[in-house]
């Protein structure tokens, strides 16, 4: 079909110059300052952001909190209902405060799994602050008598990490791939999109199962030579799956934008493709990208849960929300509902995902270039 609308191009030099000047002046207010201001005005999104930052901190600082071990099972108190007991002083089997560090490290490995040195540091700090005091079973225990509160907090670390890593992976690849393809158009666009189609057409569940079983085969090599444990491979796998949709969405948006007046104008004025991509397309695509990103993070979390449902998720003793949710659902049965095993993890997960979504909407509104200077 024809694209040329003669009216759009009858700019004389003077007008063009004036427009350019105005555009430069307009840049005076930073996009991000403006967005920040408008985000603050959007109450729900602001609260959501505060909640997420708070929760993120909490989960990052889990080793510092006086929580029980998320791993240690106590078969005498399986499926124990929540209590408001004040807690006890048995943490790390009440190790002597000046026990030698090798002993402590060993004890920590029993009560957790292989932790980073940062986490070890945080645990030392926690022992300095709280000593051997640890919380009671405030949220109850699961079917192996493990403390649910601690499992939820520690589980959030895995889940948040997986979803952030995978979402970033999909973001970087997807945006550039999609934008480039949409902008260049023609044969290259066609080729790139057909490649995406081909990748799309492989049911990714096969890919995931394949990769996860492959990890089983080569885990020693992977761990020792590449420093990739199962979790890291996990991020990569999931990220590699999720960028496809991002690329398609971005390309769709770019296709629409390509015909927009301001892009046509820039092209008429001789701007390079790269310039157009960075200055006009990417910022304008940002809104849809952010919306999509906030959809991706929860989707990855859910995908992780799905994999746990199939038994392909993270390996015990590590915990993730998916794993806890799977444990929890077996506790919902019509005979008797151990409600705490499913309600608390569901609440934690539900609130986080809701907050992410609300924040995403808020960011979209705040970043929308067309909304600038209004409301």
């Amino acid at each position, binding site marked *: 079909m024809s694209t040329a609308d003669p009216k759009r191009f009858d700019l004389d030099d003077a007008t063009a110059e004036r427009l350019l000047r105005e555009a430069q002046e307009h840049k005076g207010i930073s996009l991000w300052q403006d967005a920040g201001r408008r985000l603050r005005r959007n109450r729900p999104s602001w609260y959501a952001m505060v909640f997420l930052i708070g929760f993120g901190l909490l989960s990052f600082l889990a080793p510092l909190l006086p929580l029980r071990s998320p791993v240690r099972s106590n078969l005498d108190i399986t499926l124990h209902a929540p209590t408001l007991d004040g807690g006890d002083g048995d943490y790390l089997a009440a190790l002597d405060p000046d026990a030698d560090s090798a002993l402590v490290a060993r004890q920590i490995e029993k009560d957790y799994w292989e932790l980073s040195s940062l986490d070890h540091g945080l645990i030392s700090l926690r022992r300095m602050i709280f000593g051997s005091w640890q919380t009671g079973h405030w949220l109850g225990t699961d079917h192996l008598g493990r403390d649910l509160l601690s499992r939820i907090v520690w589980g959030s670390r895995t889940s948040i990490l997986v979803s952030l890593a995978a979402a970033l992976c999909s973001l970087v690849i997807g945006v550039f791939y999609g934008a480039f393809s949409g902008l260049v158009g023609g044969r290259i666009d066609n080729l790139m999109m057909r490649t995406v*189609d081909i990748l799309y*057409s492989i049911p990714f569940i096969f890919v995931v199962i394949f990769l996860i079983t492959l990890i089983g085969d080569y885990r020693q090599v992977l761990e020792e030579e590449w420093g990739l444990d199962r979790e890291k491979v996990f991020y990569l796998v999931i990220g590699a799956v999720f960028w496809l949709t991002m690329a398609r969405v971005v390309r769709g948006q770019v296709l629409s934008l390509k015909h927009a007046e301001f892009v046509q104008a820039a092209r008429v004025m001789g701007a390079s493709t790269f310039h157009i991509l960075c200055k006009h397309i990417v910022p304008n695509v940002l809104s849809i990208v952010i919306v999509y990103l906030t959809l991706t993070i929860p989707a990855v979390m859910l995908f992780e849960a799905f994999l746990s449902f199939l038994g392909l998720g993270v390996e015990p003793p590590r915990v993730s929300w998916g794993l806890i949710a799977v444990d929890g*659902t077996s506790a919902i049965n019509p005979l008797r509902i151990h409600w705490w095993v499913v309600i608390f993890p569901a609440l934690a997960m539900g609130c986080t995902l*809701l907050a992410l979504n609300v924040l995403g909407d808020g960011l979209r509104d705040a970043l929308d270039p067309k909304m600038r200077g209004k409301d």
Partner: protein
Amino acid sequence: MIRFLFRRLMWFVVTMTVVMSVSFFLMKNVKGGPFDTERALEPAIEANIQARYHLDWPLWKQFLHYTGPFNLDERGLGGNQEKVLGGVLSGDFGPSFRYRDFTVNDIIGQALPISALLGVVSMMWALALGVSTGIASALRRGSGVDLALRLAATGGIALPNFVIAGFLIIIFVFMIPLLPVAGWGSIKEMLLPGFCLGLVYAAYLARLTRTGMLEALSQDHIRTAQAKGLSPRTVVLRHALKGGLLPVVSYLGPATAGILTGSLVIERIFFIPGLGSHFVNSASNRDYTLAMGVTILYTVLVYSMNTVVDLAYTLLDPRIDLAEEA
């Protein structure tokens, strides 16, 4: 239009070739075979089984035998002298290695209509819930209604669907005995699984609709229409919806394919003999033929859905040119 479809078809052939060979060789390289069980077999018996199913052939030969349309088996299936054309290219997906009394064609033939129906039911739920909340919340943007609708719509992607299904079963089966707990056949049995499956897509659709509608409502021609004094109803239905549903349409393609493969959890919980479970089970059972069968089916579906979406795109947005796209 014809040229577009023709080029798509060519790409389809390329895609199929790549997908088939990649998944075939991937699958064959995963450890374990279809006939491994907890009871290890005597080498002699294992050799018999391997020979019977051609697992002792080199991979390339197995692949060619699978794709057809010629029969490489000199004895014919089961030691029979009769030579019959076989393979995917003649429409024969072979016998399943796991469900050995059925061909892959039988299995897909039984499961696909069920999955399609489940997909239709859940898509109806998703469209009804998603698009309406999306439009309503875009129109009432920033209000309490908007927030409430958005939160409600997000419910579907705030929890894994096995948790939601668990809650709903407790509520609608055991506390208020309205619906059957599992099974497939009657309309009543479709409501709950359809809802659970649709909820996820409703959430996505609501958000995409809202985004798209906001986008559309801020376009110049909408403002013109509003300025001309058209009723808000007309503006929304005649003008804004067309542009606003673009992202929704582009999402429907992947969503339809996703509903087929992603229904695994719902199928398990509600005991529905659909296609979703085959995607995972065939892979974990190393049922090579069934796994290939569902992969091919999936590819065809995704491909045709995407083509339909691209066609629909042009219907909704005249600015997009198929010629350029093809």
